């Protein structure tokens, strides 16, 4: 009996537990707890800095941040990268009072940090410290802002690092896609689309950096925010005192050039043969933050791509079709210049077009069909219910207020936006979709594997091949002194007769040589058998290296390499280099002299003798220095990009010991120099024409 009662009791308990459980649609939520958004104290100092203070005593820390009116938008043409490098070296170079090394030790011993940086439309400087270190470190921070010392070695370091990053910018398909898409939409020469290049970095001087800093790191350009464990009245005094030494200066006008809204659709492609997935981006210019339809457009934006999986793109392309891990989009609206509307996906090569079509369909659907009442409501809920997270920490409250101020938005801009979201209707969403989306003017960019993608893209129009090759710096431009073309012709004819005493040769030139090449690991010896057919432009080189035998071949414009029984295609860069070497070969020059533009520039002293200087028009320009007695091209020079140095260097090739066999003279000793340093010696042992 007792047992039964217990059992009953037990069941009742279980039942009550189960009944207490509610499904999501049975739940009713209480009011959100009262939340008093803390008040930010502001004041402006005599020299023009606006300060924002917020007390937060939860942790014994103080975070100070300065926002500076400047940006990469101000980079002069040909010196792109100036703002960014200035931002880096202010911190990395230290100040006059505190050298970089001592500053680093001082900060890290105290687990403190100071950082500076300049982005596209603003600069920043920050100091994060334990509260007990604040008084000691504030003057150090001010000194860094005011008197950075910009030492040459740290400037060089920043430039080297920037150039290293440039060299890596085509390694990742997503990085390529986002960069090139931006250039596609804004124009690659506009301030919004231009790249930092080796050459523009090389062009930046220490004076440029000093001027950039002096002009922009002035009080009129600064706002200062501080949050942490302090007392506001006390802090105000400290800040006023410390920042008073920063010169007022003049406010920098940030000029954002207008963009012409060029209409028209396009399909663009960049090949990356080591991937099996396409990165697709499509879109057109977006809008400005002050557009009165901002809220309606953002509701539309969230219908298309908001939430985690709620947006239509994720719903359809990922969940329904299983075509992607990630499908995304945004209608971005900047304050200073138009944002971009884009939608994108990463999908396996084979389904590239299928995914593109699915996205376009969703963009068109927003225009053609009203969204459902439920969709409108859940999109509004998403925006409104998550709004609290926009200001759920002291840091966010402070940074929002400063950001509004910097961008010229009112303090209640966010609340206004939320109010307008509440009022948005189904008709509004369709109206802004029709007004602001242009599915027939999409610029589509695909970065992926050409072989695997095949002809999927043709249906979108003529595919533009995007050139992502990294431009090599031009270095100092070749002076184009006008030379004497008639005399040049005469000299090159003499050289041809000297190198080919019996006139043009038929057959293949074969020679054996030993090469000693300097590499970063030391000297490397290569045995080389080279066969050149000057009629068919066929080159074969059998190279014996310490690690084995390699055969390189170029025939009918195709390059290949064989190594240990494996054959693989030659990299385009490598083929290009081999062909360029071939085009500088004395026998090639002799045979093709009639097609070359040559000019005689006078006699010059070189290698201890007077030589005739001939310029040959080629890419890059080739200079020949002929021995006036024998007419042999004793010295050849040209400029070439050196990846070690990250810049153009002069290559000089000095040839001697000319010997004849089968009607062809070639030098039996050749020494090459790059940037003045000897880097290779070639000793020929035998040659013939076969």
């Amino acid at each position, binding site marked *: 009996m007792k047992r039964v009662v217990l059992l009953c009791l037990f069941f009742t308990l279980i039942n009550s537990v189960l009944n207490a459980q509610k499904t999501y649609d049975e739940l009713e*939520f209480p009011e959100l*707890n009262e939340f008093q958004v803390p008040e930010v104290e502001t004041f402006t100092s005599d020299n023009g800095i606006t300060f924002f203070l917020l007390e937060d005593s939860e942790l014994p820390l103080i975070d100070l941040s300065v926002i500076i009116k400047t940006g990469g938008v101000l980079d002069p043409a040909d010196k792109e990268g100036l703002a960014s490098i200035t931002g880096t070296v202010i911190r990395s170079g230290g100040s006059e009072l505190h050298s970089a090394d001592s500053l680093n030790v001082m900060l890290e011993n105290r687990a403190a940090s100071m950082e500076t940086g300049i982005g596209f439309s603003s600069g920043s400087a920050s100091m994060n410290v334990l509260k007990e270190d604040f008084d000691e470190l504030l003057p150090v921070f001010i000194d860094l802002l005011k008197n950075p010392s910009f030492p040459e070695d740290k400037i060089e370091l920043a430039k080297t690092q920037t150039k290293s990053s440039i060299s890596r910018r085509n390694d990742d398909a997503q990085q390529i896609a986002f960069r090139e898409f931006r250039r596609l939409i804004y124009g690659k020469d506009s301030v919004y689309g231009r790249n930092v290049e080796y050459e523009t970095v090389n062009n930046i001087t220490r004076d440029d950096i000093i001027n950039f800093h002096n002009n922009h790191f002035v009080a009129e350009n600064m706002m200062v925010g501080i949050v942490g464990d302090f007392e506001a009245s006390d802090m105000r005094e400290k800040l006023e005192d410390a920042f008073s030494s920063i010169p007022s200066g003049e406010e920098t006008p940030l000029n954002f050039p207008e963009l012409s809204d060029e209409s028209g659709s396009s399909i663009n492609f960049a090949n990356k043969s080591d991937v099996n997935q396409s990165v697709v981006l499509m879109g057109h210019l977006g809008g400005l933050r002050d557009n009165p339809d901002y809220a309606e457009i953002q509701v539309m934006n969230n219908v298309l791509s908001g939430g985690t999986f709620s947006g239509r793109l994720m719903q359809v392309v990922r969940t329904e079709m299983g075509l992607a891990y990630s499908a995304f989009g945004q209608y971005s609206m900047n304050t200073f210049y138009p944002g971009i509307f884009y939608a994108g996906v990463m999908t396996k090569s084979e389904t590239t077009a299928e995914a593109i079509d699915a996205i376009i369909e969703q963009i068109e659907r927003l225009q053609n069909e009203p969204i459902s009442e439920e969709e409108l409501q859940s999109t509004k809920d998403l925006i409104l219910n998550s709004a609290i997270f926009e200001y759920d920490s002291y840091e966010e409250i402070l940074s929002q207020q400063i950001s509004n101020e910097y961008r010229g938005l009112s303090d209640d801009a966010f609340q206004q936006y939320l109010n307008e979201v509440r009022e948005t209707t189904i008709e509004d969403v369709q109206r802004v979709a029709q007004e602001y989306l242009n599915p027939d003017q999409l610029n589509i960019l695909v970065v992926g594997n050409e072989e695997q993608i095949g002809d999927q893209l043709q249906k979108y129009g003529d595919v533009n091949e995007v050139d992502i090759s990294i431009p090599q710096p031009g270095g100092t431009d070749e002076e184009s002194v006008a030379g004497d073309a008639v005399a040049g012709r005469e000299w090159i004819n003499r050289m041809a007769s000297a190198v080919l005493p019996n006139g043009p040769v038929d057959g293949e030139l074969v020679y054996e040589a030993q090469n000693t090449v300097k590499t970063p690991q030391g000297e490397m010896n290569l045995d080389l058998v080279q066969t050149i057919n000057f009629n068919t432009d066929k080159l074969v080189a059998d190279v014996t290296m310490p690690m084995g035998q390699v055969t390189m071949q170029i025939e009918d414009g195709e390059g290949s390499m064989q190594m240990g029984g494996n054959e693989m295609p030659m990299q385009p860069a*490598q083929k290009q280099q081999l062909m360029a070497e071939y085009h500088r070969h004395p026998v090639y020059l002799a045979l093709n002299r009639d097609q070359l533009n040559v000019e005689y520039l006078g006699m010059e002293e070189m290698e201890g003798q007077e030589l005739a200087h001939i310029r040959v028009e080629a890419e890059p320009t080739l200079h020949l220095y002929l021995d006036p007695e024998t007419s042999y091209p004793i010295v050849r020079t040209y400029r070439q990009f050196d990846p070690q140095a990250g810049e153009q260097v002069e290559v000089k090739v000095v040839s001697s010991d000319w010997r004849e066999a089968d009607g062809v003279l070639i030098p039996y000793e050749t020494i*090459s120099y790059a940037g003045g340093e000897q880097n290779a010696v070639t000793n020929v042992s035998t040659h013939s024409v076969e």
Partner: protein
Amino acid sequence: MRKIGTKLLALFLVVALLPAIADSQDLESFEENVTEFTLDNGLKFIVVERPVAPVVSFVTHVDVGGANEPIGHTGMAHIFEHMAFKGTDYIGTTNWEEEKKVIEELDQVYQQWLQESYRPSPDSVRLEQLWTQFTELQEEAEQYVVNNEYSQIIDRNGGTGMNAGTGADLTIYYYSLPENRMELWFSLESDRFKNPVFREFYKEKEVVREERRSSVESQPLGRLIEEFLAVAYTAHPYGSPVIGWNSDITATTIEDAREFYNTYYVPSNITIAIAGDVDANEVREMAETYFGDLEEGPEAPPVYTKEPEQRGERRFSIQGQSQPILLMGYHTVAQDHPDAKALEILGSIISSGRTSRLYKRLVEDEQLALTVQAFNGYPGTKFETMFLTYALPNQGVEVDTLENAIHEEIQKVKNGELTQQELQRAKTNARANLVRSLDSNSGLAQAFAITDGQQGDWRKVFTDIEELNEVTLDDLQRVANTYFTEDNRTVGTIVNQDNEEVADAN
């Protein structure tokens, strides 16, 4: 969704929280706001009351990761994590009873198809028949599905930062809500772990394959890391990719996933942390209500395999179409080993901050590297792990040159050249990093859930400092000499095939 473990940076974020340190004083003040309790079924809760703003963050830690996967089923933990967003028997369906039947049949047909395809000479007609049947069933199941309803409910209620991560050691699920919607989290979270439905399982595997393409197959670093782990580990499952080998993804069925769930998603293997504007008593009541009936299960089995001692250096290079990358690892110890702390602080001394040895010499002075990082604890920390160095040579610098310079710096550590000042600085920064990590609900919940789930006590977040503070210069020298030996080393590189030496065509 995201995998912890294939991206080094993502990993740093997770790792950085674990070793964070504060004074024991901080611990006391924290303890006042922390409540912990364990339900009768073994499910543990940690609650941090932090009424800064009316929001709350939730983190569910499950003590299962890639390392627990059976052979042939790599990627399982991660696939299950994806399935946890597919809904329940109530959410995401228009008719569960019918849907369930179709899903069961679907899995049977897939298993038959698999079986046939693994035969020495598969019958192609039968394969095609089965596949047709499979795709028809898949479409049939589709008609009952309400797309993404589970995550949409969270979105609509203001859920923020919703995601999940699978690592070699663990799986975590997390998001934040306005505090008045806490009960919604209890309802949704308990439902998905009580009633997993394996909805759209086979379609989701294709999503996972796309994730694999974007994070591993089409990424130079992703490819290098996958190869590196496979070379460095011969026996221990740390050598397998968390996202899984492609053929294993194919081989995984719903039945396998269910078995995995039954084995590892038992209450005693789960730890939940909740931080924000909440009342601990209320949390406890709701925990009893919603999770009290989560069925108890046998303790999850341990990982038996230990990585045997390495008998000689392992080295490989990938000819790639990218600039060079260097990875170098030494096998070390699990986090509960006495040497773990010394290794941790050693990584910090040589590579974090502008004063660190590798940064100072390689990045600043000799400009050999664009970046260099070294730390203990890859690909996990629970089992015997690796001390990993990752470096990108500057333009024109050979990988070998960079590697040699790193060896020279390691040799200095072995010779005992580190100073007391460097050691002290690393300790100070570890403490400050901890303090800084305590200022967000999500950061707190994540640190507490992971530390408690992995090491048995959330207090370790703080008490580890005593151990860390005891590390001496002698310890650093000793661990360097013990673990950083040539025989114990794996080196993997990507070298740029465009930059190979070209013989002069002159």
